[in-house]
């Protein structure tokens, strides 16, 4: 009994900081019940979306009022640090926006929207844990939770061939990636004898300090395990070569969920990647330079750098030829994963901050872009770029907002996307001076030239909207829901304001930089 009590105590103590997650868990269950309760209600969609928003609001409230002084929860399974909390806010925002958009749209039949909301809460829960997982077990469990529910939602449109194809590809790729990741983790555990991320880091430091023989002996096993773990997170953020599922899933999934997928799980993947790479595979940043060193002499930052360069280049060049807007945005999201990986490859606080800012900005501009896709698809039934021709005349507000989102995605000032790009490039630049940092100069150059490439396909859409005549001569004006217009206006305004006035973003991310390291 004696040995058991501290465990109970620890769990009871930790529960205080786990209340947002508990709210999401109960919310998921309650939504399933409400789905049945409101089965015949006329205001079903409104009631269920209100309930979903209430669940998110409850989680947000509990997140806001939780006491600040706990770092490690459940015996080191989860960390409740400022870094995790930043991403949790991001996920709540992504979830709430998805609920608001899905509730207004026609992508989900009313009789099934309750299921969607319930499953969405489950994904948010999984992402919460991804952001705070500090143990290999939790890493795997949270990743799987998000993946499993995503597989279901990717195939949500019954009888749709594209949805079936996307969902199946997602399952197969996801299964392989998570299996490979698990295998890599088992190596890490074998080498270090622990599953705790920061203990792994400490063990690796010990190996590094040990004899040359032991370093050489563990080196290959370490490289294999790191590459395998990278495959797991690379799949989640859709980095090349683990990106193949992305366009098909994005195209086949209901568009509000695609929007969510492109910002929520991607951000969660980056949170997880930062957690693994910066706490287990790198030491703390040196106070003098702000840079950390990759442990055990494994050049994983360079590997990530190569993955980043390949990802953005391949994403951008493939996007050039796309004619379906959802696929175009899918390849664009692959390219953006590539840009964001630049921040990860710097292994510095600045790089982490850059990733956070980028994900924050990306949330707004990408959800905005998908919202226009939803709006146009509702009016024309098509996602083809041809049906965007003449949009500036058919719905000027949507066209102008879409142009703002696309230029922000390109990274042009004075839009917020530029702030994100600026931070990433600056983080890379800081590393050029360091020892062996020459390759960062190439990375920066490739990133910069990719920006010019990406302009071409984003502008293709802008051109269709503003320059080309409508596909059919007498295309009527599009009537969009007021809620959509309000959201579009809000997103555009946010992008302009934060493109000119970054200070709040910088302050918030700066304050959220602290990563739990045991």
């Amino acid at each position: 009994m004696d040995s058991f009590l501290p465990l109970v105590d620890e769990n009871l103590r930790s529960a205080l900081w786990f209340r947002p997650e508990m709210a999401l868990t109960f919310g998921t269950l309650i939504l399933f019940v409400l789905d049945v309760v409101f089965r015949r209600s006329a205001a079903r969609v409104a009631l269920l979306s209100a309930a979903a928003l209430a669940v998110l609001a409850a989680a947000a409230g509990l997140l806001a009022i939780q006491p600040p002084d706990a770092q490690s929860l459940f015996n080191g399974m989860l960390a409740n640090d400022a870094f995790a909390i930043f991403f949790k806010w991001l996920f709540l925002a992504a979830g709430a926006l998805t609920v608001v958009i899905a509730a207004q749209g026609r992508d989900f039949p009313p009789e099934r929207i309750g299921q969607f909301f319930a499953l969405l809460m489950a994904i948010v829960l999984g992402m919460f844990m991804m952001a705070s997982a500090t143990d290999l077990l939790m890493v795997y469990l949270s990743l799987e939770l998000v993946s499993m529910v995503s597989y279901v939602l990717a195939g949500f449109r019954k009888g749709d061939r594209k949805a079936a194809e996307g969902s199946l590809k997602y399952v197969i790729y996801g299964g392989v990636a998570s299996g490979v990741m698990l295998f890599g983790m088992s190596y890490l555990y074998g080498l270090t004898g622990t599953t705790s991320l920061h203990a792994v880091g400490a063990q690796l430091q010990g190996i590094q300090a040990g004899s040359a023989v032991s370093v050489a002996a563990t080196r290959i096993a370490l490289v294999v395990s790191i590459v395998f773990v990278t495959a797991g997170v690379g799949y989640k953020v859709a980095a090349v070569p683990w990106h193949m599922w992305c366009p098909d899933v994005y195209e086949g999934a209901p568009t509000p969920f695609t929007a969510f997928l492109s910002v929520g799980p991607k951000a969660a993947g980056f949170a997880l990647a930062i957690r693994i790479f910066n706490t287990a595979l790198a030491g703390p940043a040196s106070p003098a330079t702000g840079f950390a060193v990759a442990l055990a002499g494994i050049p994983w930052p360079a590997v990530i750098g190569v993955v980043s360069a390949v990802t953005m280049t391949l994403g951008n060049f493939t996007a050039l030829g796309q004619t379906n807007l959802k696929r175009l945005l899918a390849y664009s999201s692959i390219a953006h994963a590539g840009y964001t990986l630049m921040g990860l490859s710097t292994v510095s606080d600045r790089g982490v901050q850059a990733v956070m800012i980028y994900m924050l900005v990306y949330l707004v501009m990408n959800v905005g872009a998908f919202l226009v896709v939803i709006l146009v698809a509702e009016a024309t039934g098509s996602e083809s770029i041809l049906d965007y021709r003449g949009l500036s005349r058919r719905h000027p507000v949507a066209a102008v907002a879409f142009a703002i989102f696309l230029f922000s995605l390109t990274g042009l000032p004075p839009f917020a996307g530029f702030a994100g790009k600026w931070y990433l490039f600056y983080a890379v630049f800081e590393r050029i001076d360091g020892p062996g940092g020459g390759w960062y100069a190439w990375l920066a150059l490739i990133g910069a030239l990719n920006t010019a490439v990406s302009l071409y396909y984003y502008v293709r859409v802008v051109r269709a909207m503003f320059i080309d005549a409508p596909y059919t001569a007498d295309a009527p004006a599009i009537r969009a829901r007021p809620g959509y217009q309000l959201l579009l206006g809000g997103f555009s305004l946010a992008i302009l304001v934060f493109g000119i006035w970054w200070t709040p973003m910088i302050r918030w991310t700066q304050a959220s930089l602290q990563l739990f390291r045991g």
Partner: protein
Amino acid sequence: MFLNPGNVLSWATFFPLAGAAAIVVLLAVRYVANLPKKLVDDGARLIALLASGLSLVAAVAAWRMYDPTDTGVQLTHHFVWIRSFNIEYFVGTDGLSISMVLLSGLISFVATIASMPWWSGAKAAEMAGMVEHDHGHGDDAHHPKHFSVRMVPGYMVMLLLLQTGMMGTFVALDMFLFYVFWEVMLLPMYFLIGVWGGPRKEYAAIKFFLYTLAGSVLMLLAIIGIYYNSAPAMLADGTLSSGHTFNIIELGRQAAKGQFLNAAPILGIAFTKLAFVALFIGFAIKIPMFPFHTWLPDAHVEAPTPISVILAGVLLKMGIYGILRFNYPILPDATAWAAHAMAVFGVINIVYAAFVCLGQKDLKKLIAYSSVSHMGFSLLGMAAMTPAGISGAVLNLFTHGIISPMLFLIVGVIYDRAHHREIEKFGGLASELPEYTAIMGLAFFASLGLPGLAGFIAEFMVFTGAFPVFTGYTIISATAVIITAAYYLWAIHRMFLGKLNPVYKGYPDLNWRERISLYPLAAIAIVLGFYPQAILGVINRSLHLIIQNIRPL
């Protein structure tokens, strides 16, 4: 007074932006109150004229306030903008920028006037397609509507945004702010060419956009690098910046002390050289310098007349301006290293583009290439690093900024009437359009460097300045002036002299809109021909200060 030295440049920059915002509000009101289209169009035009006019007033006021005897930056407006990166809102002017501010304000206003369908005269308006017919409201392929009556509010918003970007680029003294304004110009320009342009507008617009963006991302990397290697400096509120600075003036001071020579080399190449090349390519695309010039003829040919006016009159000046603002003071050693190459490229621009002009059939394309040729003079003059050379280079920016808008307006006049620009198809226009022929003659002669007109002084100064340093190149370039004379005179010969092609019988001569936009420029071209001191007196001291720090290798 409303405009004071502390805010006059900000007003000059943001009056157009305020105008654009006002037009957006007008559109919102139209949406709510269902105003008639004509009222909204005319309202947008009035707002644009007013905003652009106020910006010109502020620019002239700044020019009057500027004290040419004081060589420091003046009329500054300075506060901290994004503290974590030491980014400031810092505008101000020295002799170099004040001339460009004046030019930008003037040309913007002229372009705005040229964007109006008003004061055209019934016949000219009918021929240009400015008149709205009741039957058949859409554009059709045979009689496209004139750009000045298509989607007017959108056009005016873009025009005003472009003006803010241009003015801001010339007054920004913070590298970051400069970059933001530089990029802000891209979008409106893309739309202005792409939406309101000619038959191949899509191609021309995207080509312009891609070329410029490719250059500016390189520029961005150079800017980050310069910032990263700079030393701390005082911010506007008196606190010391944390680490680095974007302040261009301060960067120049640090560079004079050799700050950037100590920077670690990147991939084995000296930082200053790498930064110089990256910045230079970004600016060279805008000049446009051979071999990056191919976007310009396309953009000019497709752009509507006022946009060509702005493109030639202001945007092309930004390349040279940027090099003088960044490369010269911040990277003086690399500048000395690259001077010879700049001179060579200048000569290529002058000679190559002049020969290309000879072969042009399209009048607008001919004038576009003549711009490429003329920008070569500036490159040659500034590469020489002599007082006369650099003053001539900047004077050339100003005079070309006056003359080439005239040339494009002149093309616009005949295009509005004839709907083509084929030099060969005209003939004997002098007898039908005497006033037009006179103003065209003045502009052509000013451009080919006839003594007594503005262009001559600038070219002459460039040649005298460059001769002692690059004797051979100067002789080659001066010879090319003969080719310039040849293509202009030949064009006059084919278009205006000889027997009148009967197709053009009864064409109306200049209307009032064209007069208001052309005559002031013509007057300036004549006045500067006799009294270049009006500009030289303002720019000389600042320019000589810039080249003082550059030690020729």
